[in-house]
């Protein structure tokens, strides 16, 4: 059985400080394509909701004439959800409040080519 093409990207992201999980999700269906998450995280639920959020943000951005969504960050009381997408796939990262979002953002943008 061959390794997933996203394995490298996910293992790179999960090693970042404060990252609790990262997932590659189908934007249209919200189904997990591949993931690397800590125990206790409901990856299916996060994937479906994050994909829906990203899709709405993309549509909103297009409607406002802002073109494509570069990087989406949701800041919550107990952490962050970051998402970046390309060609119908969304890369989602869950991070603790202490995580260095700049580094995660850089790693996610670098990983974008893998989603193509």
């Amino acid at each position, binding site marked *: 059985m061959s390794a997933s093409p996203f394995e490298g990207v996910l293992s790179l992201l999960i090693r970042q400080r404060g990252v609790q999980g990262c997932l590659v999700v189908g934007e*249209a269906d*919200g189904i997990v394509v591949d993931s690397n998450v800590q125990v206790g995280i409901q990856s299916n*639920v996060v*994937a*479906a*909701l994050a*994909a829906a959020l990203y899709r709405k943000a993309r549509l909103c951005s297009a409607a406002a004439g802002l073109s494509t969504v570069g990087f989406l960050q949701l800041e919550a009381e107990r952490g962050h959800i970051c998402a970046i997408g390309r060609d119908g796939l969304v890369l989602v990262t869950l991070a603790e409040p202490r995580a260095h979002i700049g580094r995660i953002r850089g790693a996610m943008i670098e990983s974008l080519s893998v989603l193509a």
Partner: protein
Amino acid sequence: MRTHVAEPWIEAPLQAFVDDASALFALLLHPNGQVMGQFGFTRAVDVMAACALAAAIHASAGELGRELDGKPFREMYHAGRDRQIFIGDVPTTHHRFVFLTVFDAESSLGLVRIYFEELCALLENAQPPLLVEAPISAASLEHDLNRNLAILFGRAPRGADGGESSISLA
């Protein structure tokens, strides 16, 4: 637009699903084709047809699953060009239902599956104790099918307590 149900305890879980999943249509039925609740349909004949088809698909898929996998397929999904359909088995302690929903690009399969799991849990918690256990005859089946359709489309009153149990399990 509100859901219409044959029994009051079904309304809140079904309405929650429709609101959360942004479904276009939702149908909860007994595996024999008897409608228990619906959202989005405007004609009784459409509900009747959808129930009959969903019950048949559910039964066929169950047997196919047993043949192929040793257990019935629990969920089915089909993506059309604009709309998608999801059919799932809703097992509760006292009853067994089939759930059908139609959604478009406003929702997604992932969201529908999440809220379907929630629907199952809400129905499990909301279900009343099993009171009636009557054998199904051809006459009682047709009576129940027509009774629930009539309640859903406002042609028949519910029981004095807001809804008598019409579920008869063999």
